């Protein structure tokens, strides 16, 4: 029965890893969208960035 804890730990860590990565990606999407909305799209009048 001691081996059950290794089984439990393996599945728990795999799912925590996958869910953690998914949350990280979701946060990144949210942050990038927020930044994109705060920046206007470049127009013909805009010069190259300094």
């Amino acid at each position, binding site marked *: 029965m001691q*081996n*059950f804890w*290794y*089984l439990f*730990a*393996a*599945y728990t*860590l*795999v799912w925590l*890893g*996958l869910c953690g*990565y*998914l949350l990280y*990606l*979701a946060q*990144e*999407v949210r942050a*990038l*969208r927020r*930044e*994109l*909305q705060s*920046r*206007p*799209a*470049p*127009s*013909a*009048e*805009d*010069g*190259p*960035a300094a």
Partner: protein
Amino acid sequence: MAQTLSRPTASARAPGGGLALFTTLAGAAGAVTMTLALYGIFVLAPTERTQGVVQRVFYIHVPLAWTAYLAFGVVFVGSLLYLLRRRRRWDVLARSSAEVGVVLTTLVIVSGSLWGKAVWGTWWTWDARLTSTLVLWFIYVAYLMLRAYVGDPDRAARYSAVLGIVGFLDIPIIHMSVIWWRTLHPEPVVLRSEGPALPPEMLWVLLMSLVAMTCLYLSLLGLKLGIETLREDLRARRSPPAGQ
């Protein structure tokens, strides 16, 4: 011009309708098939006689390893096409898949280590299969670090494409390591010239888990591709090309 400034681009609204749909469908398929796979793993699959319940780590460890190989296969193809055609989208595909591949390989090593502790009595051994897998992990961590530290995006793409291609050569070595060298890690039980060495009820559960993990990989890849597309758009807004 005011019209240009006020109208958001397509990528500001969403990272692409087709890509978003692909990500959602792959995620939904992954959730359904993973539920079925977990039912198979914990209810339908028989308990292995020698190892006992801990052998069920096999049903997540092997699909994670296969999808990690798939992820690095996508890096290989994306890198090769980038070097041949110099289109940014191939580089975006390669670097997105590399990150997902590193996450999957990390989970392969963690799950394998726990399984190893239970059946071999050690968390880690410098066995050919384990060592070559660790080398694979280091190669693609180096790939991601290269991308982060080389300032010029074109140079970063070129250098990492070369590393992405060379790094992929480790995968056949990992697969063959248990045949070429005497290892603690067992030999392949599915991809063998004599056919799978698993009973059908174990094989079906493994295949279901493999399908589920592939769907999850595709949805993570879709999400990461969306992020990279948004990032490219943002970079273009920060520094619009001269003459625009």
